[in-house]
């Protein structure tokens, strides 16, 4: 029993240490926000938005279409062809929860891993020290644009994903089954509440912040040696994934 409590205590201390590091970095980054409006941070922000937001669009479109079609089709079949009920469940399950999680995991896999390994590589090559010796604060120059870009991109991509899943997925449904496209769109819009939209936006901003902060922190903290870069990337993935799932749980617990 004592061993269990010791282990639990260690885990709690570990969790608090990481949590403090992530929160600390995020707060520090907030202080650098005004610098994002001027060069060179602005250019870095736009570059990151391009890599994370624009380059992701083609594949994400396919994923959104398939998700919209497959989930609507499955729900329609399970719920005995009841369109109203299908749309209610689709709205609550896919639009409010799954689509945001999918986009967050997609951005994490694509850009989060790249950011963690890039910063870890920079640290190992002494580039962070170079920036510092030039009088440039690495967290202002490297971290703030990346976190800001991920926050913006997760929010924008989530909206894009949801719009594509609804309009595209419903269109595919109408092609492959007996589904009234215009009626479905009208019913879907009727059931959409302002509170849901606010919750969706809040979630996307939080998840984007989590991915950006955790991946940047892990990249900056990479240890020297051959295992430094893969270790930083792996830890960034696992911590971000866990934090997103915990965040989702907290949102559900707090807002239903």
């Amino acid at each position, binding site marked *: 029993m004592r061993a269990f409590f010791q282990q639990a205590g260690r885990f709690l201390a570990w969790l608090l240490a990481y949590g403090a590091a992530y929160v600390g970095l995020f707060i520090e980054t907030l202080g650098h926000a005004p610098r994002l409006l001027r*060069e*060179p941070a602005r250019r870095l922000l736009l570059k990151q938005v391009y890599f994370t937001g624009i380059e992701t669009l083609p594949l994400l479109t396919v994923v959104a279409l398939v998700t919209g079609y497959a989930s609507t089709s499955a729900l329609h079949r399970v719920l005995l062809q009841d369109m109203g009920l299908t749309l209610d469940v689709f709205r609550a399950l896919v639009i409010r929860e799954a689509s945001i999680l999918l986009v967050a995991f997609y951005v994490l896999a694509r850009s989060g891993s790249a950011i963690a390994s*890039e910063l870890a*590589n*920079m640290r190992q090559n002494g580039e962070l020290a*170079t920036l510092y010796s*030039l*009088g*440039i*604060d690495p967290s202002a120059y490297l971290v703030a644009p990346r976190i800001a870009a991920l926050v913006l991109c997760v929010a924008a991509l989530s909206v894009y994903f949801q719009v594509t899943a609804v309009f595209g997925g419903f269109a595919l449904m109408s092609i492959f089954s007996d589904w009234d496209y215009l009626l479905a769109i009208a019913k879907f819009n009727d059931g959409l509440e302002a509170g849901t939209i606010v919750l969706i936006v809040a979630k996307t901003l939080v998840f984007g912040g989590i991915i950006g902060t955790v991946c940047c922190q892990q990249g900056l903290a990479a240890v020297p040696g051959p295992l430094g870069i893969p270790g930083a990337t792996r830890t960034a993935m696992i911590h971000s994934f866990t934090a997103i799932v915990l965040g989702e749980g907290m949102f559900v617990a707090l807002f239903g």
Partner: protein
Amino acid sequence: MKTPLFKSSGLDCGEHRYPALQLTAGGMAGWRTTDHAASVVLFDLVMGLRRPPPGAAVWFDQDLAGLNAEEILGLLRRLAPLTSGGGLIGNLNIGDNVMLPLTERDPSAVEQATAELEEVLDRDPWKYWLPGGHLTRLPFQATHLERCLAGVLRAYLLKPEAIVSCHFFHLLEAEARQTATSAVLWLREVSPASAWLILTAESQLPEAWGANILEAKR
């Protein structure tokens, strides 16, 4: 007596111990180390990248040991580092690397600096050393000499009060080392930096710094 820009009560880098050193305006001072690693540690201590012991690194009457990160950054903006391989960032091209610290420190000076850079690169011998087209290359596409030359240009555009060079000629072949030495001599002529702190390995000093630069001072 001149006010020192930099003074040290001596530094202890593991196995290596260095005596007290003072750098005044218009002067040059050199700390010779026996190996590459020691000069890198020395550079980190002198530039506040590692916390030095009190009195071991005092720039412009400010002891690095007692300053916070923001204060150290403010102090570093008065200096220009000149390090091995130019100290370039891998994901920025050579031109952006040259302009980066200036863009961060003083955005209003960028336009004038760009014109100055173009003028320098149009001139002999720079147009042979670093042709303008090479500015768009990423550091890994450039030779070690080109990266060093980009570092010299950056130090020139920053117009620092002092230059700290660390292991600058590391990895350069004999011919490239001659070119780099000429570039450093050019920087000495044109830069407003009033002092130069040199941290380098013993083996490099006689042929590059020793013969051409430190001796030239005398």
